[in-house]
């Protein structure tokens, strides 16, 4: 069998797995979306108020916080994974939480990874709102709260882009969640491929394990779903950037 035939057959089988809604594939996709979605939601709830606090409130250590956010935007995922792992292992300071190799641990790792990204991009979007807009709010009788809301409204497309960038990063991330989540599936096999339903196995971690096992068609199926998800997020992000 030539390489081309091998690839074509892999792709055909991958589409069969996707369109037959194979339970193994679907459970992995579900875990990916749940983990990354929850991490993005929690990171958004932290990052947007943080970006506003940095923009509007004067406090000591603000510059240090901005440096921390900027540094956090480029954190290596494996380092974050290792750090979270060391914190939550039974002998670690947060070992009592008993979350090692769970979805919660994966959410925590992704939260740490993407909160600086959403904060940093939101901060840039807020800073891009002209000062005159804020002054206009005051001249029309607005309070500081009104000025903050007006800024949020003006920066809305940039902030949505920030959230989508965070989601895209979370979906595509592999190193951190592999360390803290363990890439676990239940024992047995569902739908004739892979193992049992996913516990902490995501699209990215499953691709690594299925490829190493030589199950290329399953890897391709997972890859197609992953790319489709990330592409959809990026198309949305581009749409909002164009509207800005």
């Amino acid at each position, binding site marked *: 069998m030539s390489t081309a035939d091998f690839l074509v057959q892999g792709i055909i089988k991958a589409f069969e797995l996707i369109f037959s809604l194979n339970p193994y594939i679907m459970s992995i996709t579900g875990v990916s979306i749940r983990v990354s979605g929850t991490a993005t939601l929690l990171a958004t709830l932290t990052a947007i108020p943080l970006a506003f606090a940095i923009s509007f409130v004067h406090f000591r250590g603000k510059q240090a916080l901005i440096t921390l956010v900027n540094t956090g935007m480029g954190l290596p995922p494996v380092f974050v994974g290792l750090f979270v792992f060391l914190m939550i292992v039974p002998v670690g300071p947060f070992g009592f939480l008993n979350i090692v190799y769970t979805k919660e641990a994966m959410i925590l790792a992704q939260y740490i990874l993407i909160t600086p990204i959403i904060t940093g991009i939101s901060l840039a979007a807020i800073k891009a709102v002209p000062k005159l807009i804020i*002054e206009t709010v005051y*001249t029309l009788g607005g309070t500081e709260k009104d000025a903050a809301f007006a800024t949020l*409204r003006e920066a809305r497309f940039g902030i949505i882009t920030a959230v989508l960038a965070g989601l895209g990063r979370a979906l595509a991330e592999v190193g951190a969640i592999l360390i803290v989540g363990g890439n676990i599936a239940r024992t047995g096999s569902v739908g004739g491929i892979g193992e049992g339903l996913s516990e902490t196995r995501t699209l990215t971690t499953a691709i690594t394990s299925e490829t190493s096992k030589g199950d290329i068609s399953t890897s391709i199926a997972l890859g197609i779903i992953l790319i489709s998800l990330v592409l959809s997020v990026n198309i949305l992000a581009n749409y909002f950037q164009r509207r800005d």
Partner: protein
Amino acid sequence: MEELYRIEDLSKSFGNKKVLQNINLKIFTGEIFAFMGPSGVGKTTMLRLLNLLEMPTTGKLIFNGNDNAILQKNNVMRRMSMLFQRPAIFNTSVFNNVAYGLVIRRVDKKTIEKKVIDALAIVGLAGCENQKALTLSGGEAQRMAFARAIVFKPDVLLLDEPTANLDPANVAKIEEIIRKIRSELSTTIIMASHNIYQVRRLADRVGILLNGELIEVNTKEQMFTNPNDARSYAFINGEFIY
């Protein structure tokens, strides 16, 4: 006429730079008062102080007999409105832009609708409610900003070079709007301008600012025919070298 502002020995500095010094002035309800002078003499800072966007470094600013106006900043600011040289436009419809001052005052929807339509009619933008504000031309945007500034009927309207960068047709429209606002809403209008001809067409009284000092305050007639200060005469006649 009733006294609206009283300014006593007011000075304003930014760092080591003194922008305004020893300003003493009274502004009366219902008048159009114009600060005139070359660029960079402190006209905009004066308006920002009157709008309470800036605080004086020293001296007193008394608004409507309220000598702690500075302490009650926000309540007092709600009775004023200011227009900048280039209007800031919210990225939404013309209607939402104009309605903003009413929305933050929690006015009911029906009243907002009526007042916005009335305000847009005053500035000649009737029918533009649903247009995206960012698609307006420079002149239209400035007229929309006027509508937004007057829709909640402020006691004071502060105008910072309201027609700078506009073509003659739009200048004429804006000046007509200023006259209309004064006659229909009895709003006190305080403007800053370096356009001598415009001040002559619109103002009741004029104050000339030079290097941060208010060198003369006079009625328009007196200022343009027989000013008290030689520097005022030089500025009005284009002989002032700066």
